[in-house]
Structures are given as C-alpha cells and as structure tokens.
C-alpha cells in the first residue's frame, strides 16, 4: 500500500506539477547531468535514473533524486566555472545521507538484500567532481567528469556489501575507501528526432582486494517532443567483485522530461 501511494505520487509529480513552457528546439545533449552544462534559470530536467536538476541561475543548478529523498536524503549543486567559446567547465558537489536506504534493504525474510546481523551506522556520501564539455559542432558534444566519492562515518563491514552490478561500485564507499571515477560521454544528433549517447565510465575503488569497474553503453534517444525523450540501449558492465570478475550486458531504458517553470505574470 505504501509503495502504491509512492507510485501515485510519482505519477502526479511527473505529469501534473509545474507549468511547462516548451523548449525551442532539441539540444545536442539529452543528458544534461552528464555534461558541464547547467540548466538555465527556472529550467528543469527529470528522468527515471538521473537526478532532478533545476537551474537557479545561469551558472548554478541544484540536483536531487526527489523520490530518493524518502529513503536517501540527497542534494547536489553544479556550478559552471568557465564558459568560453565551445568549452565549458563546472564543478559538482553532493551529499547523500544513505543510512535509511541501507536500513530499508536490511532485514529477515524475502526482499532483504542486506543481512540483519550487521549494524548500519550513520553514513554520509560526499561526492566532488569536475565536469568539462566541449561542443565540437552543432551536432556533437564531448564531456568528461572526474569524481571522488567518500563516506563520512563508520564503514560497514565489507562482508555485507551488495555484490550486484551497477549497485556495488556506487555504494562501495560505504564498505571500502574512496571511489574515483572517470566518465566520458559523446552525445550527438542524428536527425531532428534522434539523438545518441555513447558512454565509457571507469570506477576505481581504493581497496586491498577489488578495484576496477567499467560501464559502457550506446544509447539511442528518441524525442517524442521537445519535452519527452525515450532512451534505450545496451549497457556493458565489467566489475571486479568480491567473488571475482564478471561481465553483464544490461538493458538501459530511460525517460527524460524537461521544461521550465513559468513565472507568474504581474500586471
């Protein structure tokens, strides 16, 4: 019942909140969160798997997984530092309190993915990164992002890590030391309605035993309108997990929704 309510809230939030002004034309990028670009003032971007991003002004953008806040209060700020010709440089700073999220998955019985016998301490994930983007031409944008993620608080015993693709490397700071990541993506336009993105993400987990993770994907983006985009593509994940090395090919699906909040007109 609780989950149904969350789902309904999610739909309401997605469909009915905010007054939308249609963007003028398709951007070369579909995933603004993966670039050094920031949303314009009052413009927003939402998607299933990326955080909600909202432009405070031309240079500063706030990001948050809105629904995720229920279990994992999180906030992130991206600041555009340099915007010169076709070159953009931004920094991003995030904080996540993810103890409730881990506790949600802990327990006895079916559905519990973390063993009940361990104590989950108060833990904050701190992430700092630099984004650079270079607009090669009107149809091609290359972006890179160097990140360091640390956990503040007592670490959880690594016996209880969640050894699953995608999840392990993202939550590794809770069990291991710092995680460094270098992510590069190429976003481009094919036609008026079709965009694409190719990504190559490398994670290095600073640990004694397991260290390297690679995620790479080629994603096709179909623009239903200037507001809605549907994304689909394969994602290849390689990881050095506690049980050994593993490669997974995973399906990637996403819906991106963007627009801006209309200001109230004053007479």
């Amino acid at each position, binding site marked *: 019942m609780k989950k149904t309510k969350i789902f309904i809230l999610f739909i309401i939030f997605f469909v009915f909140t905010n007054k939308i002004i249609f963007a003028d034309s398709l951007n070369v990028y579909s995933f603004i969160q993966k670039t050094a670009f920031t949303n314009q003032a009052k413009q927003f971007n939402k998607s299933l798997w990326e955080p909600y991003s909202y432009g405070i002004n031309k240079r500063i953008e706030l990001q948050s997984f809105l629904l995720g806040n229920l279990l994992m209060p999180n906030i992130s700020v991206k600041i555009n530092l340099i915007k010169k010709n076709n070159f953009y440089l931004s920094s991003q700073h995030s904080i996540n309190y993810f103890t409730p999220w881990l506790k949600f*998955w802990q327990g006895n019985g079916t559905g519990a993915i973390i063993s009940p016998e361990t104590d989950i301490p108060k833990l904050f994930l701190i992430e700092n990164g630099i984004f650079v983007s270079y607009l090669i031409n009107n149809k091609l944008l290359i972006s890179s992002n160097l990140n360091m993620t640390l956990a503040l608080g007592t670490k959880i015993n690594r016996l209880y890590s969640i050894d699953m693709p995608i999840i392990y490397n993202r939550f590794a700071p809770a069990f291991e030391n710092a995680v460094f990541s270098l992510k590069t993506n190429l976003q481009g336009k094919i036609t008026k309605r079709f965009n694409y993105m190719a990504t190559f993400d490398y994670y290095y987990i600073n640990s004694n035993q397991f260290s390297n993770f690679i995620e790479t994907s080629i994603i096709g983006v179909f623009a239903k309108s200037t507001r809605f985009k549907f994304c689909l593509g394969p994602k290849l994940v390689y990881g050095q997990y506690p049980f050994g090395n593993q490669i*997974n090919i995973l399906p990637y699906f996403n819906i991106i929704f963007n627009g801006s909040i209309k200001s109230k007109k004053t007479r």
Partner: protein
Amino acid sequence: MNRFILVIIIFCFIECRKVSETFEPIEDAIIYSADKQKNNPQPLNEIKLMSWNIRFGIGRSNWFGDACGLNTIFDKNIVDSTLNLITEKINKENPDILMVQECDVNSKRTSYVQEINFILNNTQFNYAYYGPVWQSQFIPSHGLGKMDMGIVIFSKWKLENAKRISLPLRSDQSAAEKYFYLRYCMLQVELNIEGFKSVKLFNVHSVAFSSDDTKKRQYDFIKNEFDKIKSDGGYFACGGDFNTLPSNSIKKDYCIEDMCEGEKFHDTENKHKEGSNYLGEDDGFNQLFYNYNSSLSLEKYSQNESVYFTHTTRHPNNKPDRRLDYFFTNYQWIQGTDTTYQDAIKFSDHAAISVKLKLPK
C-alpha cells in the same frame, strides 16, 4: 512482500542472464582437480567410502537457516578454520572416496571461499566432481546474496561419466520461493579400476524441509535409478544425507528439540516444525532398505540407536540425536567396517560416516 517485488523489478533492469539456475534433468557434473597431483596406489580389493554433510564449513555457528541462528554471513577466518578441522578429520580417516553435501564454492555467506579447492589441496584427493544444488546470482532474502552450493564426490583417482541428476522439486512453495530455493540432486560417477568391474558411485542430498510428498517422490526416484543399474547387471554404491530416519527409530518427532524461542508446536495452529517431524516418511525410504544393502542394517541400528546418530540441530552438548546419513549398495560392504564419527559433529551439524566396499570382480 512489497520489498520483494521491488527487488524483482531491479533485477529486470539490471540482469539479462538467469538470476537462478534451474538445471536440466541430467547435466554433466563440474570437474575440479587438485593444484598438485598426489600419488595414490590403486586399491587391492576394497575402497573406503566416507559421507559427510559439512554444513558449508561454518561448523556449529548459528546460521539463520537452522538451529535458531541469527547469522547469515560468515567471516573467511571462521570458514577457513572449520575447513582445516574438517580436512584434518578426513586425512585421519583417509577415505578413498568422499561424498560431501552442502559444500560452498563461491557463496557470499561463506565469504566466497572455494571450499572444493580447499579440500582438494589439503587432502589426498586428486579430483572432485561437483553437482550444484543452489546456484543463484543473487538471493534477495536475509541478505544471502550470491549462492553456489552443492554436492561433491572427491576421489583419489580419476572417475568417469560424472553426471548431475535432478531430484523432484518441492511442490509446497510459491513460484517465487521455488525459483530461488535449493534444487536437490544426486551425483553419479563411474569408478573403473583395472581388474575390477565398473562401479557407479552416487552422492545424494535429499530435501529437508518439505511438508508435502517431496521426500517420497525423491526416494522413489533414487530407487528407480538404482533399479536401472541392477537390471542392467551393474553395481553401485551410494552415500549421502537422506534427511530421514530409519523406519524403526523410537523417536520420530523432534519439533520440541528443534523449537526456537517464541515458537510453539503440537497445537491446533502450528502442528509441526518444518523438517523436524519425520512421521509418515517410512514408505518410500524403506524401499531402499528392503531392496538394497545398507551399511547399517535396521536390526543393528535398533540394538543401540544413539551410537549411530549423525545429526543434531542445536543439541547443547553437540551430541547427535538422530540418524540421517546412509550408505546403500547392490553389492557387498566389508562386514564390521561401518563407522559413525560422532566426534566430527563438532565441525558441522552432521557426523561423518564411512564404510568399506568390496570391489566386484
């Protein structure tokens, strides 16, 4: 249950491959060999068989799945030290063939210790034949995570035609439980020693916690496999954890002994604890006793049951209180060689058993 649905949705997004292995009726067993081959002489007239449910190398620790335990994941040091004690015992008894049940090869609960390699490299065995019973990328329950557990036949000599044969599945579970649950099996290998007739060796681990007729269906299935060998004029020897009592056992209901704090049995709501009441299981299992030679006859067992007990869930003095492990053959055991190692229950929740098989000429 809602959390379970969420986990399944996550799986749909992140896993293209099968999350849990379901297995064909007959599959090739997985073969392992020791890092360093040991020189073992060919047997003269007999071989010593040993069977042991090693409880995946956690000794007498309080696992959540049985013994009223609370723990799910065990540290590598605990597993390694238990395996050291287990291999010491194996080396002391020096069997030619070892049938092991509940052996983890790459499971989160045992810190991903490769238990087959550990035993191979610390004993006189050169080869191991593995039949997985519980193989899942991720079990979304109690934080179990990745699981790979099964039954193994260890041998000093190379064996042939190693097969994993699926036993009938439980029919008293929901589809989701069934998908992630253990898929019990028997392992078959062929021992071919020059100068002797071929002997098929079986390792069996049958269901423990079913509340339907699964045990009977499994015993019927096992008997059917034995019957086929017998009718072809062949020979077999089988050892394993059959998870039931001899039909002439004085006590058959262990619900009170196995009861955990807060549990209640033998009332109108909770009649019996799963896996602790063995009443009504004689029908199928007796057929094995009546048609084949057990290393421990029912007559011998009835004379002094307690010295033949091989299992306990949580006996305070770690003394076994029931017999669940057996050997059967359609040939001959060497008289007086049947042994129950009750001291070995310190390293598992089962005691090891052994017997010598006369090799057919």
